[in-house]
Every structure is written in C-alpha cells, then in structure tokens.
C-alpha cells in the first residue's frame, strides 16, 4: 500500500499551484467573473500551452502527460483552492474521459485539440424532469439518413457559453428512463437550430439552457454504440463525480483555513474569538471533515477502475460523504465569521457558494446514499 504521489504528480501540483497563485488571486477572479464573458481566456490558453496542464490525464501519444484520474484529481483540487471556473471538468475530465474510452479516429481528432486549449466542451446531460438520473431523458436523436436530428432541452449546462463543442446525451430509442436507447454525441456548438440562453450561476460560473430545435447532426458525432451509451455515460460521470470531490476538498480546505485565520485575528470581549472553546471544537470538526473528504476522494479515485458496481458504490460513498462535509464546513465557516461572512467582499462567502453547489452536483447526498444502498445492501 502506498499513498504517496509520484514525482510527476507532485510536479503537476506544484506547477499549477504556483501558476494559480500568480494569476488567480481573489480580486482578479472577481474581476473576470464579473466581466461580460465571465472569464479570462488567457488563463485557459496558458494552462494548455505554458503548463501543458490540459494534457494531464492523456497518453503521451496524444501529446499528454500520461496521467489519469489521480492527475485529474490533483488539478481539480488546486482549482478548488482558488474557486477556479476554468472548464477543466467538462472539457478534460468528462469529454476527455469519453474520448479516451471510445478511442479511434474521434479521439485522435479531438484529444489534441483539448490539450492545445483549442476545444472547450460542455456536458449537456441534465434535463428539467430528470434530476440526477442520467437515463431520464426526453431529448431525442432521431435517425435521419446517415445522421440524426436532435430535439430537446438541456438544463444548466455549465461552461456552455464558452464552449466550442457540446457533449450531449440523447435518446435514440426506448422510453424515458429506460437503460437502453441512450446515446452520446459530440457536436459543434454552432449548428443550426441550437438555441442557447446564457446566464451566470450563483457560484461564479456561466451556464446555459440549451434548446435543440431539430438540429441536424452527422453520424460520426456518435461516441460509442447507438443506444448502448449509458454504461459509458455512467462511467464518465463517476469519474467526474470524484473529480468534483477533489475540487470540494480544495474548497473545504480553504474554508477551514480562512476560518482559522480569521478567528485568530478577530477580537471580541478582549480576546481573539478563537479562544472560545465552542468555536475551537467547531473548527476541529471542520478539520475532520476536510480530512475525510480528502480520504474519500482518494478512495473513490483509486476505485474508478473496478467493475461497475464496485466503482459506483465507492463513488457514491465518496460523494455522499463529501456533500455532507461541504455543507457542514461551508455553513460553519460563515457562522464563525459572523456578519462579515455573508458579504460579497470576502472570499469566504464565495467558497461557501461553490461548496453549496458542489453538494448536489452529479447527485445530492440522498441520491448517492440511495444508489449506495441499492448496490451494497441489495439482498
């Protein structure tokens, strides 16, 4: 057993931490998230071209760094520490993960584009009626000659306003919620009939409602088999879920550190408020949640390679634990700051907002406990 990181992994973390330390201080972040486009594209380009970071989980033959899920977790945790809004999750972890899994000409064509920073890919999977069920789809892709016609509505697609491509889940057959009949497509964002409504999100990101109004797409947009896409989608969403747990670890660590620091400076009744034992115990509880989030992220990441059921149980265990932890650490960071914690001015509140959105991303605590029970406690 060995939980140490390799030299390359340490290097990835250090390089990225240094870069983000220089480019992503809170004030700078606030400036670009409040700008018209909501981001600074130069950062993405630098991540790709100066740091090679967008190649972290890809094989060297594509021009990547030869890593995998652990490298993704490292990058996500560092992004969490600065509440980064870079679309690494949908582009590299999710779309990259799908392309790695299907391989072939599609991977050969797109992965280098991702690594170079030319492609930003948003993941359009959620639907108004679907909650966290990946098979609950009304979006359809109807066969039409050699291609398909896409119709439907996708909800809250993070990073879509910046995207060059969309990774879309749709039904090519079966009824809503069937496991069969689900397919995955990678399409250009500018196709005729794609209507987007863009908006900011409460955690400083940008997202869109996407309406497909009879969008003609070509046959080679299909990733994997027609109608048999669900296992692949579940796999990449599990990979994304542990990546989000890694991000949460970074966010939670900062919430905890920020609280420790503030309570040692803030004086009331003539003493630093960190002297009050009730606050000390609370900060100890926060600390324990951060440590457990880190443990569960590593556990989930290491188990991604196991057979589907074991993988899903592990990922759900991780996400359920992290969701609770993010809730606890976020709320208590604010409470312990007092009034100053609920202002936009301090970074702490923005970490809290991201922690809150992470709670339900790819499934809430309840959703994942339910999935865990169905796999592990089924008799």
């Amino acid at each position, binding site marked *: 057993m060995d939980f140490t990181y390799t030299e390359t992994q340490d290097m990835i973390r250090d390089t990225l931490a240094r870069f983000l330390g220089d480019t992503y201080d809170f004030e700078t972040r606030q400036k670009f998230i409040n700008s018209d486009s909501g981001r600074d594209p130069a950062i993405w380009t630098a991540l790709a071209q100066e740091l090679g970071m967008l190649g972290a989980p890809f094989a060297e033959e594509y021009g990547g760094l030869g890593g995998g899920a652990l490298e993704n977790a490292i990058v996500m945790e560092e992004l969490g520490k600065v509440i980064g809004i870079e679309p690494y999750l949908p582009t590299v972890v999710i779309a990259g993960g799908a392309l790695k899994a299907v391989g072939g000409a599609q991977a050969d064509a797109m992965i280098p584009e991702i690594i170079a920073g030319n492609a930003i890919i948003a993941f359009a999977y*959620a639907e*108004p*009626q679907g*909650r*966290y*069920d990946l098979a*609950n789809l009304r979006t359809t892709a109807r066969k039409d000659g050699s291609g398909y016609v896409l119709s439907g509505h996708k*909800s*809250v697609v*993070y990073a879509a306003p910046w995207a060059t491509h969309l990774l879309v889940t749709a039904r090519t057959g079966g009824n809503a*919620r069937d496991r069969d009949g689900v397919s995955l497509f990678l399409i250009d964002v500018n196709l005729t009939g794609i*209507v987007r*409504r863009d*908006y*900011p*999100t*409460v*955690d400083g*990101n940008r*997202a869109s*409602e996407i*309406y497909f109004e009879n969008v003609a797409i070509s046959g080679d947009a299909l990733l994997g088999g027609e109608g048999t896409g669900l296992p692949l989608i579940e796999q990449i969403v599990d990979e994304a879920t542990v990546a989000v747990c890694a991000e949460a670890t970074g966010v939670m660590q900062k919430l905890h550190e920020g609280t420790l620091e503030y309570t040692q400076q803030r*004086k*009331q*009744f*003539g003493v630093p408020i960190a002297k*009050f034992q*009730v*606050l000390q115990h609370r900060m100890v509880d926060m600390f324990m949640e951060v440590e457990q989030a880190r443990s569960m992220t590593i556990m989930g990441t290491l188990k991604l390679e196991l057979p589907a059921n074991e993988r899903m149980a592990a990922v759900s265990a991780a996400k359920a634990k992290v969701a609770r932890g993010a809730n606890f650490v976020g*709320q208590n960071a*604010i*409470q312990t700051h*007092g*009034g100053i*914690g*609920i*202002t*936009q*001015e301090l970074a702490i*509140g923005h970490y*809290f*907002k991201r922690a*809150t*959105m992470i709670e*339900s991303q790819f499934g*809430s605590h*309840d959703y994942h*406990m*339910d999935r865990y029970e169905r796999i592990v406690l089924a008799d």
Partner: protein
Amino acid sequence: MDMEFSPEDLAFQQEVRDFIAENYPAELREKQDEGEEMSKEDFLVWHKILHKKGWIAPAWPVEYGGTGWTPTQRFIWSEETARADCIRLMPFGLAMVGPVIYTFGTPEQKAHFLPRILSGEDWWCQGYSEPGSGSDLASLRTTAIADGDDYIVNGQKTWTTLAQHADWGFFLVRTDKDAKQQEGISFLLIDMKSPGITVRPIITLGGEHEVNEVWLEDVRVPQSQRVYDENKGWTCAKFLLAHERTGIAGVAASKRGIEKVKAIARTEVDGDKPLLANAFFKRKVAELEVDLAALEFTELRSLAGANAGRGPGPESSLLKIKGSEIQQRLTELSLEAVGHYGAPYFRGFGEGDNEHPIGPDYAHRAAPTYFNMRKTTIYGGSNEIQRNIIAKMVLGL
C-alpha cells in the same frame, strides 16, 4: 390546561381573515408571488392600510396607539398575517424604537415620534453594531461629545439594515469614555439627513443590498434627541432586547415556508413521482414539521406565561435559536428541491424569453435565499451568544 381558542378568539380570527382578504393589495400579492424585489413603497402600502384600520401596533399600549388585544389575539394576528403571506412590517420603528420611546422618552419625544412611526412617515434604522463591536456590543466606540445643547457624534456603524431607506436612526454612542463599558453609553435618535452622515451599501451573498455601513463625521445632534438619561443608553438597549419576543421564533412564517416547500416538492418530479413522494425528502419535511411543532408549543407556553403577566425571560433565547435553525433548514430544503435549477443566478438573466425559460420561477431565489438566511443565526445576538445566555441565566452555569 387547554389549547382551544375561546369563542371570542375564534370570532376575532374570522374578523382578521376577512379583513386581510378584503384589504390586502392585489398588486403587492402579485409582486410577492413572482418573487420580485420589494421597494420601500411596497413595504409601506400594507403598513399604511393597517395604520388606517388602527391595527398597526398591536403590541403597543392603547394610549400610544396600540390595539388593546390580548396576547392570544396578538398571536392570532401574527398567525393569520403569516398564513396569508402578508409582507412583513419593518420592526425598527414599530417593534424597536417605538417601545423605547414610549417607555423612556420625554413627552415631546413621544408626541413627535410615535405618531410618525405609526403612520409610516418615518423609516427607522438601528445603529448599534460597529466593525469592532458585534457580539461584544458594549465595547462600541462611536462617541458623542457634548457641545452646548448638542452632541457632536463621530464613528462608524455597520450592518445597518435598510439604512438606505431610513429617515431616522436610533444609535448607541459613548458619552463617557472613563466609565465602565456599559455605563458610558447613551441612546440617541439621529436624523439620517444630518450633515456628516454617509451611508454606504454592503452587498450580501445573494446579491442583495440589505445592509450598510453608516459613517458619522462631526454629526450635530440636539441633546433633546437623547432618550432617557445620559450614560443610561444600555438600559434602553437591554429593555429593547427583552421587549419584543413574540414573533422572534418566526413560527407562523415557517409554517408558511413549509407549505411553500411542499408545493415545490409536489411540482418537482423524481423519476415517475413527485419529489414529495421520495421517502428521504418526505422524511426531512416531516422532521421539520415536528421540530416546528415543538417550537410552536414552546412559544405558546411562553405566551401563556405572558398572558398570566410574567415577562419574557432568558428562555426566549431558546425560541431564537430553534426558530432561526428551522428557517435555515427550510431554505436548505427548497434549494435541495429545485435540483439543477438552484444554480442559475437570476440577477444575471438579462432579457426575458418566455419560449426559452430558465427553470421554474420558484427556483430563482432558492440559492440566494439559502445564502442570505445564514444571517439568522448571526444577527439579533448570534446563536452562540444565545446559548451563552441560556447557560448563564437559565442553567446558572
């Protein structure tokens, strides 16, 4: 022991219901239902209707404009207004400075300020907290130095709720630097239009402008606007803290809140059923109802005590703690209920487009409200401070 309303109480309840049904402004209701931002005027329409009816200050003594209702009738009133989702009345004049003025004020102060509070002519704000003095309020440093018939006031207040609308503020200021902390404080009424006052917005997590910094620079305040004796302001402050305890638990509003959460959870689908049929979610709603029942009956017991003439004691801290926790859990449940649509930030939606909506209307404020309501365990004496009070005053530790 019994928990039934008397026939008189029931008749009163009906009267209140009828009055609200006939008089609550339809436009205001519409604005509320659509979750729109409330302006100063919106807050005041209902206030003015109630003033006209003579029902604006149920808690006040009749001689100053109160209704003369029994505590039970007041309870019915707050239940019914919450049930009908009436806009809340601003507490700063009616529930805070008003009672201080009629208890400690001079005849001139009473004659001038009380009618204007009742009519809604003056909007009040509360200037207690300072950057360095939150939980430890008695350490406040804003000074008032006597100068002829006036005081010259200097300092900074913060977290001042809705000071941007305020005509007047009630302030705690230090008039004796050498006395023990609590003994050198005075209670001043200050015209917010006085030269030297600057109000700067603080934007909170949900994006709202609700609180402010208030800077006071050589602000001249007539000594006739001091309430009660010089250096006795802490007495007024303590009175005020203990005074308005009915409603602190927010039971009626939380009941209404639970109904709203249920309505959302009946609309949201989870698989082939409404979310409210999801066993985990339903259990959380049920637990909240049970906790709310515990809070309600704790409040009723304390109300029965008030009926019997016993003043509210430090056990009202219990109502504040449990009430605020329930309010927060409600917002947490709403956010959970709306799923993905908790993320879009409605203040950035831009042009409306009915054909391509961004989630259901009820989802738009779920996250901002959840963020915003973290305040309830911080303000009005944080829940940690309330627990300290119970430990000391109730448990004698």
